[in-house]
């Protein structure tokens, strides 16, 4: 007997269509609490697979008979085992092929804005809450904060009939491995990152953002302005595109600010974040659309499926951004960062600085888990 396996891409497509799904996650409780599949039309329940060993009926009264059930585990073996049990009982169950490992590698591409000379896509790595961007103009393309699955970007560029000419990282990431240097090598594009974040000479070629504050590409001017917005890391920048879109990296999120504690200097970096928020960003108009590098909560995804919000709305809703007194701000931001750090962040930072390199399998293992890059200040 073989049950139906659902691929991670199929699951994504069902979620995009707004299908109502019931997820039975059969990993152990700790792993589930830590990181799980979430969606606005998803109902989720955790019953570890080993509970089915002792009692195959353990979940019967907690599962819907009239809904599609997707079983999920770490790699797809245990979820298939449980799906077979449920299938035998008449439930409509399918197993997520490859489990959370496969889910962590699925990307969702959404068009944010389109006009004659500018097309802006948000590319959402759903499981990790990592966001990257592609900006197209007159046959040229810039990629911002790319993940390491390069095909996502080269295929989108091919569909748009464009050549990738610029690759930008808003900072050295702590939660995922950057695709920047590898994509630059593959496409011949220039790779931009701040020297201050690299802390040394990496083995890959790059152009320092400190010396390239105005970047142009396309026939028509598409200006990518590097605003220095330190806080999350000392070399964090935001990219201000045509004075209308702010690709804010990990500095400002829809629902909070970037955590300043991952460098072991929480207070110092929180003070820098204060200067960013109240001095550097003060002049930006309320109708600037903020497009961050992460989301941490489903509420940060809007009706169109885009993670983005007007700067004015973020200013109004974010408690830290209303705390104009510097000491109070520093206290709030430095004190609020979770004690839980992004999984394997020290190794990931070393890879992104070019100090360490890993193969595909190890890279996948290192990236398993949520991003944990935000300080949460909802409401």
């Amino acid at each position, binding site marked *: 007997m073989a049950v139906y396996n659902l691929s991670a891409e199929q699951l994504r497509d069902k979620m995009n269509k707004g299908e109502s799904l019931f997820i039975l996650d059969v990993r152990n409780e*700790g*792993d589930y609490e830590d990181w799980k599949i979430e969606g606005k039309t998803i109902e989720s329940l955790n019953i570890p697979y*080993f509970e089915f*060993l002792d009692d195959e009926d353990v979940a019967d009264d907690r599962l819907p008979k009239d809904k599609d059930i997707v079983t999920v585990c770490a790699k797809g*073996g245990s979820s298939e085992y449980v799906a077979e049990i449920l299938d035998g009982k008449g439930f409509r169950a399918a197993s997520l092929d490859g489990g959370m490992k496969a889910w962590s590698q699925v990307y969702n591409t959404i068009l944010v804005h389109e006009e004659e000379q500018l097309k802006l896509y948000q590319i959402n790595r759903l499981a990790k809450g990592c966001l990257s961007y592609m900006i197209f103009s007159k046959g040229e393309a810039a990629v911002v904060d790319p993940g390491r699955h390069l095909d996502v970007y080269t295929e989108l560029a091919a569909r748009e009939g464009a050549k990738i000419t610029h690759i930008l990282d808003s900072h050295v990431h702590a939660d995922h491995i950057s695709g920047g240097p590898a994509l630059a090598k593959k496409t011949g594009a220039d790779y931009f990152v701040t020297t201050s974040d690299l802390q040394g000479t990496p083995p890959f070629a790059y152009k320092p953002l400190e010396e390239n504050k105005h970047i142009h590409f396309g026939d028509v001017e598409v200006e990518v302005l590097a605003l220095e917005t330190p806080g999350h890391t000392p070399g964090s920048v935001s990219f201000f595109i045509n004075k209308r879109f702010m690709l804010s990296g990990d500095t400002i999120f829809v629902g909070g600010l970037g955590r300043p504690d991952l460098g072991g200097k929480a207070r110092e970096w929180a003070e820098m974040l204060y200067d960013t928020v109240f001095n550097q960003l003060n002049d930006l108009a309320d109708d600037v659309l903020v497009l961050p590098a992460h989301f941490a909560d489903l509420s940060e995804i809007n009706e169109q499926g885009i993670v983005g919000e007007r700067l004015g709305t973020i200013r109004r809703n974010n408690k830290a951004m209303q705390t104009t007194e510097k000491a109070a701000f520093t206290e709030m931001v430095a004190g609020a960062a979770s004690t839980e750090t992004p999984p394997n962040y020290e190794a990931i930072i070393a890879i992104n600085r070019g100090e360490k390199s890993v193969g595909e399998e190890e890279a996948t293992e290192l990236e398993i888990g949520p991003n944990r890059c935000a300080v949460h200040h909802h409401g």
Partner: protein
Amino acid sequence: MKADLTVDAKGLSCPMPIVRAKKGIDQLNAGEVMELITTDPGSVKDFQSWVNQTRHELLEHREDGGVYTFYVKKAE
């Protein structure tokens, strides 16, 4: 440590190490000890959760070069 039964689940991945362990422990009498050997790192936390839940007693566990060995005493 001496075991009354050894379950070798080397090379198997989830859920098989625990499926085998469950079958193994079902053959034992209360108070007897099962040794489980697995190479699947993913099954380690699951195995500990399963032992806790079933109220068997985890006597000892160790890792040696990617091989995980558990000794479990069957509950009364």
